[in-house]
């Protein structure tokens, strides 16, 4: 392994600009003549829009334009879309209510977009927005997930019972049979708490219109600028794709929330033509809480059937998923195809049946948030399995190992064909790291200090790099999930790689360059990675679902291989040899069995000057592109073990130890991969202990700032012990599985299993705040006293 090659902990190329304050985020971009947009948002969760009077506001200083849903409709700007069709059990399509970028006739959640003011300064736009008078006909709000379908209030006319779809997966009859044959059935009711993604950079947009060209440019905080352009063009109707450029420059974290096509970005780019000047909007944090797509929000009942030997024989799950007031871009896929197919976990379970009802409520739209469906599935599976082990009096590690899938490939009863894995290896390594043998003593020590200590396991599996495109198409996806790459070699042998993946913290500029430098045998400094601009990169699907390594890098590898193949042809002419006799190794083309060589840079120069070959026989130049569509999902898996100590007097839970052993297949840069695991765990611990978006009965978001919504801070978390096992992924040429979401998927059940182990009962909800844990601990103390 070279110092910068595959497997090396190369320090990040992108860091210099970030640590010196030279990053370029959307809000750092200022266009000449720029104006500012401010959105007037609904203060009500549910109301008719009877009248919007902006006369007085329009005359206020600096105001350039005030627009409402009517103006968008007059310009034939379409509504926001949901790009994944789900069908009901009876085969009928889901009920998608219309989703105008600026409300028409009705507002459906607090923060919904009533009007936009464009003014010379942000302060002027905000002042004018306050002067707009809106006559709202306030309606009762539907807020609660579990009861939304039985509410008398209707969020959308398209759905009488607030139901988006009733969907199911699996073999119901086979599952019923398994439960009839069961020796023991474990039952669980749980709530997967609603979260707000909160990347530290709030969403932002700068819309620009070039009158001479009749072309728009949108600078925006996007994880997938090409998908944004596709939707804004083909569905919303801003402009044809060749007249619409979308640029996603440095993006300060996404975690899913910047995948989606939102109202504000749409309105900014449209309004740029309206006012004839660039229009900028930057979300403040409260707006982010109100209007970024939220995550999770499930209510679930689940059961696990085991036989007399403790073998898992069946699972059934019934979930209600809250999708909020409108269907966000990929919302419908999250509680369906990204959820139920993961319910087999790492276990050999012959029969599984899952039903999902998705509901509308008067709350912010819910869509993919780090893990997207897979954390919800893992929480169900790993809580059920842990409780089953306790009920059966089995060691939770051994019970898991007994039921692990051991032969691959393995077809689960819920779509997935797991390609490879070695689950027991991860478990054994994690047990060592956490010092499982020493647990009993640590528990006694804690008890001596009046504390309760517990351990919690989580054997998670996830599905990344969702593909092949034809397969996801058959499940309802509106897009293909391949990736593209172009490798441009300059005449001096430096290389520009254009990728459809997008980096918003993942370090692609480093890992992608590692791959290319490794394959071409050229210094890593000679490789530049270009992404995030639809004018530069022809097409791409962006970054989410841990797909950039498995899919994005595979596309790059494919294009690099084409470059090498072309280089061999050039070298054959230059070295006057047969193409079949040319080898490429360590940056040199050479003629087998001779000492004749041509280094990569010289080959590039020869390809461009084209003096040594006839342009009719071989095209000049050295540039290749590739589209790569994988053969299967990838299946990263691992074991996380969390050890907590609880102070029953205060309810404070301290995480004392964390062992994470993950199998991500081949790892390009372990430093970056470990960083992804750390960040993921922190978000999962946030869900388990601290975070929860709360709406009151009227649909007011009462957790709309960092004062009210508890983000994990440095002193809420421990350092993590991260280890790895490796089974290379057979579904892509690089053997990569993906690592971006594992931590967030694995960690919530590990924490809750540890807390419930410490407390000796299962009645703990997320977030397990000190108040929740203190109450639960009082119950434990009472029970202990009674025993």
């Amino acid at each position, binding site marked *: 392994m070279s110092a910068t090659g595959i497997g090396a902990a190369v*320090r*990040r190329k*992108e*860091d*210099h*600009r*970030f*640590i*010196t*304050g*030279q*990053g*370029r*985020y959307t*809000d*750092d971009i*200022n266009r000449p003549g720029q104006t500012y947009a401010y959105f007037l948002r609904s203060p009500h969760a549910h109301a008719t829009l009877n009248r919007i009077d902006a006369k007085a506001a329009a005359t206020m200083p600096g105001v350039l334009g005030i627009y409402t849903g009517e103006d968008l409709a007059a310009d034939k700007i379409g509504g926001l879309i949901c790009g994944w069709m789900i069908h009901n059990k009876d085969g009928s399509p889901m009920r998608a209510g219309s989703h105008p970028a600026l409300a028409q006739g009705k507002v459906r959640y607090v923060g919904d977009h009533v009007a936009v003011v464009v003014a010379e300064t942000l*302060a002027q736009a905000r002042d004018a927005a306050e002067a707009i008078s809106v006559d709202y006909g306030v309606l009762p709000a539907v807020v609660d997930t579990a009861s939304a379908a039985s509410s008398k209030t209707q969020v959308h006319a398209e759905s009488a019972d607030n139901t988006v779809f009733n969907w199911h997966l699996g073999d119901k009859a086979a599952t019923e049979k398994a439960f009839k044959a069961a020796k023991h059935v474990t039952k669980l009711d749980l709530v997967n708490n609603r979260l707000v993604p*909160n*990347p*530290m*950079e*709030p969403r932002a947009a700068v819309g620009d219109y070039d009158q001479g060209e009749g072309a728009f440019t949108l600078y925006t905080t996007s994880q997938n600028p090409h998908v944004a352009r596709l939707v804004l063009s083909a569905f919303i109707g801003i402009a044809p794709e060749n007249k619409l450029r979308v640029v996603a420059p*440095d*993006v*300060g*974290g996404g*975690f899913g929330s910047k995948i989606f096509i939102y109202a504000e970005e749409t309105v900014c780019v449209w309004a740029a033509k309206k006012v004839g000047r660039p229009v900028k909007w*930057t979300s*403040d*944090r*409260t707006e982010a809480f109100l209007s970024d797509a939220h995550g999770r929000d499930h209510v679930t009942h689940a059961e696990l059937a085991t036989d007399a030997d403790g073998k898992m024989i069946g699972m059934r799950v019934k979930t209600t998923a809250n999708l909020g007031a409108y269907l966000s871009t990929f919302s419908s896929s999250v509680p369906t195809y990204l959820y139920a197919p993961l319910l087999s976990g790492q276990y050999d379970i012959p029969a599984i049946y899952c039903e999902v009802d998705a509901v509308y409520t008067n709350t912010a739209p819910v869509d993919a948030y780090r893990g997207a469906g897979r954390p919800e599935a893992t929480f169900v599976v790993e809580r059920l399995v842990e409780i089953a082990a306790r009920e059966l009096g089995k060691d939770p590690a051994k019970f898991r190992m007994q039921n692990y899938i051991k032969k691959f490939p393995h077809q689960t009863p819920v779509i997935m064909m797991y390609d490879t894995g070695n689950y027991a290896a991860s478990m054994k390594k994690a047990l060592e790291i956490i010092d499982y043998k020493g647990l009993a003593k640590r528990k006694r020590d804690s008890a001596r200090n009046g504390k309760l200590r517990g351990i919690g396991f989580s054997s998670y599996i996830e599905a990344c790099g969702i593909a092949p495109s034809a397969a996801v198409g058959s499940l309802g996806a509106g897009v293909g999930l391949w990736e593209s790459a172009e490798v441009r070699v300059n005449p001096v042998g430096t290389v520009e790689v254009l990728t459809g993946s997008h980096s*918003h*913290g*993942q*370090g692609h500029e480093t890992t992608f360059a590692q791959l290319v430098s490794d394959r071409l045998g050229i210094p890593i400094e000679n490789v530049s990675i270009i992404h995030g601009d639809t004018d530069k990169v022809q097409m791409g699907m962006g970054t989410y679902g841990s797909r950039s390594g498995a899919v994005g890098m595979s596309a790059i590898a494919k294009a690099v291989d084409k470059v090498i193949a072309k280089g061999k042809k050039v070298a054959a002419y230059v070295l006057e040899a047969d193409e079949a006799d040319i080898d490429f190794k360590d940056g040199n083309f050479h003629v087998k069995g001779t000492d004749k060589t041509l280094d990569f840079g010289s080959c590039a120069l020869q390809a461009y000057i084209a003096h040594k070959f006839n342009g009719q026989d071989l095209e000049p130049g050295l540039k290749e592109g590739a589209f790569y569509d994988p053969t299967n999902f990838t299946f990263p898996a691992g074991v996380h073990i969390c050890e907590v100590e609880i102070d029953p007097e205060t309810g404070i839970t301290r995480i004392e130890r964390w062992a994470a052993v993950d199998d991500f297949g081949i790892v390009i840069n372990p*430093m*970056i991969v*470990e*960083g*992804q695991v*750390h*960040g*993921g*765990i*922190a*978000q999962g611990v946030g869900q388990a202990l601290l975070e929860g978006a709360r709406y009151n009965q009227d649909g007011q978001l009462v957790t709309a*700032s*960092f*004062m009210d919504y508890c*983000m*994990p*801070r*440095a*002193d809420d*978390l421990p*350092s*993590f012990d991260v280890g790895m096992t490796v089974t290379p992924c057979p579904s892509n040429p690089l053997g990569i599985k993906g690592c971006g979401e594992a*931590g967030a998927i694995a960690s919530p059940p590990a924490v809750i299993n540890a807390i419930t182990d410490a407390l000796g009962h299962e009645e703990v909800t997320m977030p397990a705040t000190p108040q929740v844990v203190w109450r639960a601990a009082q119950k434990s103390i009472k029970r202990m006293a009674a025993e």
Partner: protein
Amino acid sequence: MATVSLTVNGKAVTANVDPRTLLVQLLRENLRLTGTHVGCDTSQCGACVVHLDGKAVKSCTTLALSVDGATVTTIEGLAVNGVLHPMQEAFREHHGLQCGYCTPGMIMAAVDMVSRRGHSLDEATIRDDLDGNICRCTGYHNIVKAIAAGAEAMGKAATPTRKAAE
């Protein structure tokens, strides 16, 4: 409008601002020093931390007019003559950043932490002292390592300060 004069990263600047202008707006919008970020509106996240007369402050909660005559250092002014500050180096070396959005505030807060609490910082001290800064990407693991290493490096290197360089 009112006039405010101050020294930013060693340069004297004067700006004409609306009285409600915040220091972070003055830096980002008037001076185009966009390295200082805004991550919240309740003074919770620390993305906006700069040094005001040598002490860390949240520039999102500081009125521009209130710093008339003061000396401000932002992330852009931390490296001297192109040489990175040891804390900047430490963040890169220890992978203390991912998306980079919280990073300027983290680094400015970390340098201030060292000046208040010394060069030998243990994990608990760093975690406790960092409670004014939020990072959503890193889980803090590597930020903590970076700060400990940066603090030590600041002690070893006769850290070039802006004053010394002038």
